[in-house]
């Protein structure tokens, strides 16, 4: 066989200032091959994909497409070759409609846009791929994250794609949706499309990929067949060495007064966000209550109510025995609630500000590090340095901007801040979305620490493994209704049924 690979990268190096993001990396993909790219945050996966997609030109190295030397000057040139990309932080315009977001992804380039035609084309393609598509007129920003991702995937596949890059595509999907996506990807592979899959979920590498390239600190540490690898091998290649994850949690003894008591909370659907319907739950002191469910089934309104971002239309909420009368983030913080918001870059931190400023972005911490007239900058810097050490946050010190932190390190900072006030209740919503194993474990350890110190944790997560692995009890949200909680040992099948909107368990 002398057929050249579809894509071949040789000796690619990328440097940002003094940091070497990629160091003489080689990568090849054949038509009809699924190649996984594994690596910790900061290992250079995204940088490598940006090179392939034409968003970044390498300082050194060469790229060949179908055996011919190529250099890409932008994503348009990548599109023209047939390279599509599904971005992890979606490249969607929230304020525009579904049809408007798809309009640039089709081949047609008239001066007027035929939005109906675009949407028809998209619907046909979606049906072919087995993807559910939101209505043409829906505002993309109002859609749940899973639906947004399907638009993002569809956008990459509206034109003839020969190489599809997916950056952590399953981070927000349920097991069933993941299976569906994989079926789509296998279908594409069988038609000769090459797929580059960035993921940190080892099981998915073994399940889907033919070959795997492991990156560590900008270097390729292994290129091998995925089928001959075990999860353990891959994990070790990726992070060097691994300590075993902690054993599954046991049910915690309930305290006399629950930390959180929600009674019959309800709120109306709001511009595309689903309603919450008669949700009741209790979180005991020292307990982690997991809320499982498919994204978009009421997690958002529940999270917003408990974090004080919006008031319920009916029902009541008690924190530590005190009924909440004012629903504002400040009131909730004062009541002892700490928040880990789902979108760490938009809601969890102020990216333009420095690490030490972000470290005290909490009413109590701010009070502790300021006088009436001024910030105690030295104190806050020392405080931030302490958090950086204790949580192994990789950054250029307290004066680095939050924007310069990788996703995992930013999340560690946010978690560190949430724990610094010794919260009575910690509300975490998809706290490890898109994080690599190391960072995800650090977050899990922190959630357990809150419970061990007698606080309660309300864990809303669309990652079922995470919910089952951490929670003392699990309830399921489906179409705005919250099931009665179940205790371990968990029956995955039963919980899966509840997530799909099946029968609620008999009242025990």
């Amino acid at each position: 066989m002398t057929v050249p690979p579809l894509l071949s990268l040789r000796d690619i190096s990328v440097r940002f200032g003094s940091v070497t993001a990629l160091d003489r990396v080689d990568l090849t993909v054949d038509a009809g091959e699924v190649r996984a790219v594994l690596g910790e945050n900061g290992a250079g996966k995204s940088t490598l994909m940006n090179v392939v997609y034409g968003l970044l030109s390498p300082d050194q190295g060469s790229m060949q497409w179908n055996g011919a030397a190529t250099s890409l000057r932008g994503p348009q040139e990548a599109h023209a070759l047939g390279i599509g990309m599904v971005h992890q932080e979606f490249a969607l315009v929230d304020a525009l409609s579904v049809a408007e977001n798809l309009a640039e992804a089709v081949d047609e380039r008239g001066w007027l846009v035929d939005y109906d035609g675009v949407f028809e084309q998209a619907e046909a393609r979606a049906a072919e791929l087995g993807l559910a598509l939101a209505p043409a007129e829906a505002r993309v920003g109002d859609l749940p994250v899973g639906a947004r991702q399907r638009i993002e995937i569809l956008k990459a596949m509206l034109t003839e794609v020969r190489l599809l890059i997916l950056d952590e595509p399953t981070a927000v999907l349920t097991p069933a949706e993941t299976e569906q996506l994989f079926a789509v990807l296998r279908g594409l592979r069988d038609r000769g499309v090459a797929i580059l899959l960035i993921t940190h979920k080892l099981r998915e590498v073994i399940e889907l990929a033919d070959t795997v390239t492991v990156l560590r600190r900008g270097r390729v540490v292994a290129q091998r067949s995925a089928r001959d690898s075990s999860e353990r091998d891959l994990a070790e290649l990726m992070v060097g060495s691994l300590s075993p994850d902690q054993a599954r949690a046991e049910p915690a003894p309930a305290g006399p007064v629950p930390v959180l008591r929600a009674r019959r909370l309800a709120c109306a659907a709001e511009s595309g966000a689903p309603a919450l319907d008669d949700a009741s739950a209790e979180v005991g002191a020292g307990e982690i209550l997991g809320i499982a469910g498919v994204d978009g089934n009421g997690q958002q309104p529940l999270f917003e109510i408990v974090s004080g971002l919006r008031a319920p239309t009916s029902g009541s909420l008690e924190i530590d025995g005190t009924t909440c009368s004012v629903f504002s983030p400040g009131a909730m913080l004062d009541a002892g609630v700490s928040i880990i918001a789902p979108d760490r870059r938009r809601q969890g931190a102020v990216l333009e500000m420095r690490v030490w400023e972000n470290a005290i972005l909490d009413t109590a911490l701010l009070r502790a590090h300021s006088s009436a007239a001024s910030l105690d900058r030295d104190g806050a810097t020392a405080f931030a340095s302490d958090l950086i050490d204790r949580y192994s946050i990789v950054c250029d010190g307290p004066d680095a901007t939050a924007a310069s932190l990788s996703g995992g390190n930013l999340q560690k900072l946010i978690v560190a801040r949430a724990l610094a006030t010794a919260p009575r209740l910690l509300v975490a919503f998809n706290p490890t979305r898109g994080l690599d194993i190391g960072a995800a474990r650090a977050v899990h350890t922190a959630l357990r620490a809150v419970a061990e110190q007698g606080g309660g944790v309300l864990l809303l997560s669309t990652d079922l493994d995470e919910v089952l692995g951490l929670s003392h009890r699990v309830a399921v949200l489906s179409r705005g209704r919250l099931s009665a909680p179940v205790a371990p040992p968990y029956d995955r099948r039963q919980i899966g049924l509840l997530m799909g909107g099946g029968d609620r368990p008999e009242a025990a």
Partner: protein
Amino acid sequence: MTIETAGAIAVAAVAMATPLLYAAIGELISEKSGIVNIGLEGFLLLGAFSAFAVSHASGSNLAAIAVALACGAVCGLGFAYLVVVRRGNQIVVGTGLNLFAVGLTGMLYRAQFGVTGSALSVPPTASIRVPLLADLPILGRALFDQTALGYLCLILVPLTAFLLRRSRTGLHLRMAGENPRAAAIQGVDVRRVRIAAVTACGTLCAAGGAFLAVDYTHTFVEGMSAGRGFIALAIVIVGRRHPLGVLVAALFFGFATALQFHFQALAFDIPFQFFLILPYAATLAVLAINAGDSNAPAALGRD
């Protein structure tokens, strides 16, 4: 109130709304692309002065308007260079442009025409009368007996709405203003889109200024834009960044101004300055009621 009076108020209302509408539509286009141009006032003045100077020298108002538009386009391009290419702060550059325009037009006016005391006048621009329609009561003369710039302004509203909603350029404009990163990934040249939008804004503002000088007042007075650029900024917000909303808001302000003229003419026993306040106070009141600016493009004013 007689029909004649109502008709006269309508004529004044539309005429007062026209320069505002030009500036506001220009600003709307610029803001949709993500650039705040608070230099509208300066662009209006530059347009007014260049139209006046050319009309005075050549006697041709067509040439005057053409030069004013060109002048607005060039200054718009300059503004775009500073804020889009050089990434200058949009508020600082806009403020600078306003001050620069006041100084430049004032200096050129005095250098060219001296301080005469009485204003020089230029020949009025011929209006185009639509037969029959212009005879309609009240709105007939206001809408169907206008200059070319007056008609063009009204056509601009549905045209802008259509282009924003249906054209590819309109889509690129909105993408650039809402999420420049996503736009760039889709292959949209965000810088080019923004430069074009700001240039269009400068050109439209200059058209408004030219209307003010050669179509409406037939003269030039230092600082004659009289805050219209800032009113236009408010109109864009009150009009919810939609061309039709902007039209309604501009007509509202035009009407308030026309009414003020009428009240002054009635010679109530109230100092005339109070009437002068009326349109501005009305704008403030509407702004206060419509305080929310929730539909601003997500990337507005950032880089």
